[in-house]
């Protein structure tokens, strides 16, 4: 398989993850609300995929052999649009229309409107099935592109996900890569309280998947995981379970149920921007009483 070599320095990727978080905060202010914490949890994963790993040509978005990306957790689109603008899929100034009447950019991504978007999403639980179809098509067409699907951990409760997991294992879709943003929270609380999804590694493995589990904010670990995709058993679909922190990067948002959707205004906005500028601080979970 002819794939680009990893060629971006980790500091540059760190900078792009910061850019994703800051743009999320900026665009949320335009909209008056935004999915901060779900986007922050996958910022490093998204940056590594788009700036380092995916075989794409932003100037040729319909290139049949391009890698595909499906943002199954579509509410993190607010972090995806700035990346695509930054890479040249469209003019970054268009982002200023975010969520305004008639904008291309809604809270969930729409492939009919946004150039370079490989599929639409919003209703949770569909994205991996889309990826299964893309991977099947690639195989039938004799193309060696890879399909990446970013899954939220909450959406793993959707039954369709497991239909897709089952079929990908059965079909031996070696060109399909799922990434689980395992941030631990869904809207109503901790996933293990709302609906337990562990043990995730065993669950995927039992369906015939090659599994890796990593720290989803550690850029080196993320890159190593992607590099390992090449070395793994090529007969299986592969999943990277990325343990992340919901709201990572802004202390008040980290593992907080209050920032799934929120709105930062005034001094709070400026404070958060300054906090993000300073870069990631070590995550310090509150002591459990």
């Amino acid at each position, binding site marked *: 398989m002819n794939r680009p070599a990893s060629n971006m320095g980790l500091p540059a990727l760190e900078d792009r993850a910061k850019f994703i978080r800051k743009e999320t905060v900026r665009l949320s202010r335009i909209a008056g609300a935004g999915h901060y914490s779900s986007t922050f949890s996958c910022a490093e994963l998204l940056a590594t995929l788009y700036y380092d790993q995916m075989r794409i040509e932003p100037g040729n978005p319909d290139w049949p052999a391009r890698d595909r990306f499906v943002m199954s957790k579509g509410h993190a689109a607010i972090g995806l649009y700035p990346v695509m603008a930054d890479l040249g899929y469209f003019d970054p100034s268009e982002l200023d229309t975010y969520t305004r009447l008639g904008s291309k950019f809604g809270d969930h991504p729409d492939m009919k409107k946004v150039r370079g978007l490989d599929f639409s999403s919003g209703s949770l639980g*569909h994205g991996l099935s889309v990826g299964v179809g*893309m991977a099947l098509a*690639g195989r039938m067409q004799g193309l060696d592109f890879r399909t990446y699907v970013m899954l939220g951990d909450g959406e793993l409760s959707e039954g369709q996900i497991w239909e897709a997991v089952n079929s990908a294992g059965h079909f031996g879709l070696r060109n399909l890569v799922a990434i689980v943003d395992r941030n631990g929270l869904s809207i109503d609380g901790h996933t293990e309280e709302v609906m337990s999804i562990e043990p995730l590694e065993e669950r995927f493995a039992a369906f015939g998947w090659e599994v890796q589990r990593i720290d989803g904010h550690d850029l080196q670990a993320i890159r190593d995981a992607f590099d390992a995709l090449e070395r793994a058993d090529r007969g299986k679909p592969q999943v990277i379970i990325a343990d992340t922190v919901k709201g990572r990067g802004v202390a008040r948002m980290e593992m907080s149920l209050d920032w799934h959707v929120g709105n930062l205004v005034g001094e709070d906005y400026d404070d958060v921007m300054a906090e993000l500028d300073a870069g990631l601080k070590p995550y310090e979970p509150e002591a459990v009483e």
Partner: protein
Amino acid sequence: MTTDMQDESEIFRGTTTGKTLLRNSRSVRGTPKAGMPAFVLGEELADIADSDPRIVVGTADLASANRTNDFHDRHPDRFVNFSIAERNMITAAAGMASCGMIPYVATFASFSAILAAEQIRTDCAYPNMKVRVLGSHSGMSMGFYGTSHHALEDLAMLRCMAELTVVCATDANHLRAILRASVEHPKAMYIRLGRGRDPVVYDDVPEIEFGRAIRLREGTDLTIIACGSQVRASLDAAEKLAKEGVSVRVVDMFSIDTIDAAEVKAAAETGAILTVEEHNVTGGLGSAVAEVLLDLPRIAFRKHGVPDRYVEVGPPAALYAHYRLDVAGVAEVAKELMARKG
């Protein structure tokens, strides 16, 4: 065992050649009963796929029932059996379509149109994916299998979805025409099929255009607008009524969305319109026709279909008679409407 019971038992009996998909399958190909052609779905798609590498066919563990196994036999590399996971099948078809394939995915109508309605809307229709969902064994053609297997709401559910073309296949030749015309159709489609033993209406593959009805019989006193299995019943009812001196026009309104409004308006000139469908009277063909009639002067009009209740179980022929969707029943209802016309 009655003939009708035999038909029921054949729903799951398929044909296989070459690699066997099913154990204990018994070939019935080549020996269709007179006037009851076997399902041509897989065969016709295989013919199309011979010269079109974009065609891919999927099913949900029903390759024998809907004869997509005929496609598998000829194009195994472009056949995907998704097993009993219809939502995954339809969304995956959308994923394939996004990569330039043209997927035809087929299962019972109750498990495509109804079970996976959201996947049809959100993943196929809205993003304009060229997915063709084939819902076979629609209406009450599964007879005694019960409500879970009946699809009497599919037209209503899917007709209100934008960017989705909804059509009903009338018989085998009509299905061939629909499949051929569907290849280059720019929108997602739902194609409603009977159980593959539909009575013949078209002796040859007809010329069709989506959105254009087919006028099958001229008449001046009444127009019957029908679709699917009810086209044959309506034609025969018209013949019966002709002997009683009533001149009945019959229209095959196979295109439910977009409906042929011009043909409905033309039908108004007969002064009475009866719609006949194997579907709940609410929301299907009759409702679509009624919406057009709202713009016209008042005429005698009646929607005829299955009442807004879950239907009894029974052999299909018995059900058609019970719900007055057989020839005699349609003729009776037509006469009731004529009486109202005065």
